[in-house]
């Protein structure tokens, strides 16, 4: 028994060291910077500063975009995952690989390729001009930012939902039909509730990076659609103010945690509501 615990300690040691250096230490540093000023003295001014500036607006915009992107991803991914899960097993494998394929490329490359498509002199606009419709302003609009995020994060929604659906027992669906449910009711009362775990984890995996991304909005959005990630980045890199940057990061983290909590609660409550 003792041997075992020593062995398991040895095996888990690298992981613990890794986690300490790259997760715990940065977190502590963020908290430290957020509550100190340039002289290293304790202060809450950084947190307070968020009320003054336009940060509130940026925060709200980031959360709002995150919600929109999550909803759009869900709306696209859900039927998609449902269709895939009903295909022949071999075709399913191919489809899953096709979904993963873009993820093998860097996020930067994918974002640049979107730029190449939708910029003012990009592929789409050149085509539209050639056929006489004329250019449409796409880049540097909220549309472009959301498009980029949906494109980049969609696989993170499809895969967990798909996996939840493949785990579903077919006889449950047959039972629902057997008990008198039509297609719509089978979907609403059995398929959706049973894939809820997939929806919640998919939503988490899309929402969190959507809220905190800076690269996509920087490239595709321009200054009017600045998101909180961009502000944090410029505070660290350009304005050399890691204290305010850390404070914003901390608040963002807390906000995301609250959102996650609400989302999970929402899942639970749905179950409760059906039970009553």
């Amino acid at each position, binding site marked *: 028994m003792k041997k075992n615990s020593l062995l398991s300690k040895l095996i888990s040691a690298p992981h613990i060291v890794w986690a300490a250096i790259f997760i715990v230490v940065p977190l502590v540093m963020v908290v430290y910077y957020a509550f100190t000023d340039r002289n290293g003295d304790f202060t809450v001014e950084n947190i307070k500063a968020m009320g003054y500036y336009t940060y509130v607006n940026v925060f709200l915009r980031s959360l709002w975009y995150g919600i929109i992107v999550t909803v759009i991803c869900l709306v696209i991914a859900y039927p998609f995952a449902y269709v895939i899960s009903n295909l022949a097993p071999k075709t399913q494998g191919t489809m899953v690989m096709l979904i993963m394929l873009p993820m093998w490329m860097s996020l930067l490359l994918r974002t640049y390729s979107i730029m190449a498509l939708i910029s003012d002199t990009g592929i789409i606009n050149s085509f539209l001009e050639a056929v006489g419709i004329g250019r449409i302003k796409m880049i540097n609009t909220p549309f472009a930012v959301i498009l980029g995020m949906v494109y980049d994060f969609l696989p993170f929604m499809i895969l967990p939902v798909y996996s939840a659906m493949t785990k579903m027992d077919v006889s449950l669906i047959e039972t629902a039909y057997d008990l008198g449910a*039509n297609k719509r009711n089978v979907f609403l*009362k059995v398929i959706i509730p049973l894939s809820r775990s997939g929806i919640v984890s998919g939503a988490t995996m899309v929402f969190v990076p959507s809220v905190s991304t800076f690269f996509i909005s920087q490239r595709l959005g321009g200054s009017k659609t600045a998101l909180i990630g961009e502000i944090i980045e410029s505070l660290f890199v350009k304005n050399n103010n890691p204290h305010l940057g850390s404070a914003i990061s901390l608040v963002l983290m807390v906000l995301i945690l609250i959102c996650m909590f609400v989302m999970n609660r929402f899942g639970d409550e749905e179950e409760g509501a059906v039970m009553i």
Partner: protein
Amino acid sequence: MENKVIIQLKNISKSYGDEKVLNDINLSIRDKEFITLLGPSGCGKTTTLRVIAGFVEPDGGDVIFDGKKINDIPPHKRQVNTIFQRYALFPHLNVYENVAFGLRLKKKSEEEIKKTVGEMLELVNLKGFGKRNVDSLSGGQQQRVAIARALANDPKVLLLDEPLSALDLKLRKDMQVELKNIQKEMGITFIYVTHDQEEALSMSDTVVVMDNGMIQQIGTPQEIYNEPKNAFVADFIGESNILDGVMKEDFRAEFSGHTFQCLDKGFGISEEVDVVIRPEDIVVTDYEKGMISGVVTSVTFKGVHFEIIVDIDGFKWMIQTTKEQFVGDRIGLDIDPDSIHIMKKSEYSGRYGDYSTFSDEIEHLSDVTEE
């Protein structure tokens, strides 16, 4: 027992690719009847059930329910409910909501739902389990919930697809009795699928023996046991010695080098037939006195009786006797006329009924293979 026919299958056939799973099935099921589809895995019994439930569309033939053709009616509009082999309880709902599932779809009032669910849970002895999570229940309890859920829908016919096969032996026996009681109490038709012949015999009003997508025999449990139609039925239901014989004339059959008196008639003069003799119907006597005689090659104590294998001119017979015998003993055997059952030759002749390769293990193995 002569109730009206509630379900009729007419010339039902179904193929998956080249494989014919149902081959011209004709079956009439009466109201309030407990009918069992019995056969080995792959015989088409579950497919037949799914045709009735509406999950499988037959390639040919008609399904008649209460005088109306229901081929095109989807499962959710049929007045039948199914109990699946693995219970299929909704994991996101508690016991109460599982049972209430069908009632809610029918938009019953909350009061009515409460009343029906309460009655159903009481019927299956799960009173007070309403709030429980289905995952916290034992296999037997889960199956009871599945039964309550199906019955809450007030079906005219309940379809049961090997509902007890996942339970252990003791529980299975209890549930057999309970199911039979529920069927009597509710007064509805049960169509029961199983590969367990004992289960079929003890529960059913009518047994339908199937093999190879075809119905081999329909009859009461006693008819099926005492007057099997062919070697397959004789072998599948209980233990049988099946021998090649010749019908000398009415009431006289020759096999194993001896001419026996029997009660069968209507065969051609010197027609070749299959002869069935159940192991428990053979009387062991002294070597010199028996109608036929042989050497004991194996003895197994079974509690109630000994199961012995006797070699008679190269054919191994199984005999159940309460008198202990020993390997190597030479014994005589007597067979009464009413213990002999004569069958016409069929495609199954010669494939069953010889115990030369018999072992308990093989029996058990074949029990486990499931569809």
